[in-house]
């Protein structure tokens, strides 16, 4: 579900090129690399902490039993690592407040 209001890398690139004197091609490259480096960091089991935004933490999930919701069949869900996002108190306050205004 992508609409005009959804923020994607394309919109981020436009915002950056409006403010900084760098070419669009270079900027696309830069934005891609920022998210690529963040991914690489998480893959290496290292957490990411962005002040004012939040942190990305890796959690290990044990093997567990689950059901296929469509067939009801019992299946085993393998042990895995997941990324969770813990928003910073600042971001939470901003979002909460905005909602009261609406």
């Amino acid at each position, binding site marked *: 579900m992508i609409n005009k209001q959804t923020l*994607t890398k394309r919109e981020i690139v436009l915002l950056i090129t409006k403010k900084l004197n760098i070419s669009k091609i270079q900027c696309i490259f830069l934005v891609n690399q920022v998210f690529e*480096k963040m991914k690489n960091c*998480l893959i290496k089991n290292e957490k990411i902490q962005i002040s004012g935004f939040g942190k990305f933490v890796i959690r290990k999930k044990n093997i567990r039993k689950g059901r296929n919701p469509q067939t009801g069949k019992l299946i085993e869900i393998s042990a895995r690592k997941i990324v969770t996002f813990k928003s910073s108190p600042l971001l939470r306050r901003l979002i909460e407040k905005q909602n009261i205004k609406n």
Partner: protein
Amino acid sequence: MLKRELTKIIADEFNYFSYEDIESAIQIIFESMISTLKRNNRIEVRGFGSFTTRRRKPKKARNPKTGASVLVSEKMVPFFVSGKELRERMNK
């Protein structure tokens, strides 16, 4: 990894940009994400993940120190779902 470490890694790779430009670019990335969530809009970064806001119903909670019952009103909270590529690369 902290924001300034991310900035350094990127600055080392893009040595034709000034450190200040890299710093501002990264600042714009996160600021634009914050203002998008503030407007209750969605963020989608292919391969990395997406961010949305979700409604939390009002609930009764307790002050953990005093045990007094408090009412927590309805609110919106940020929510992250990791992208397919990230999920797959994490578990390889």
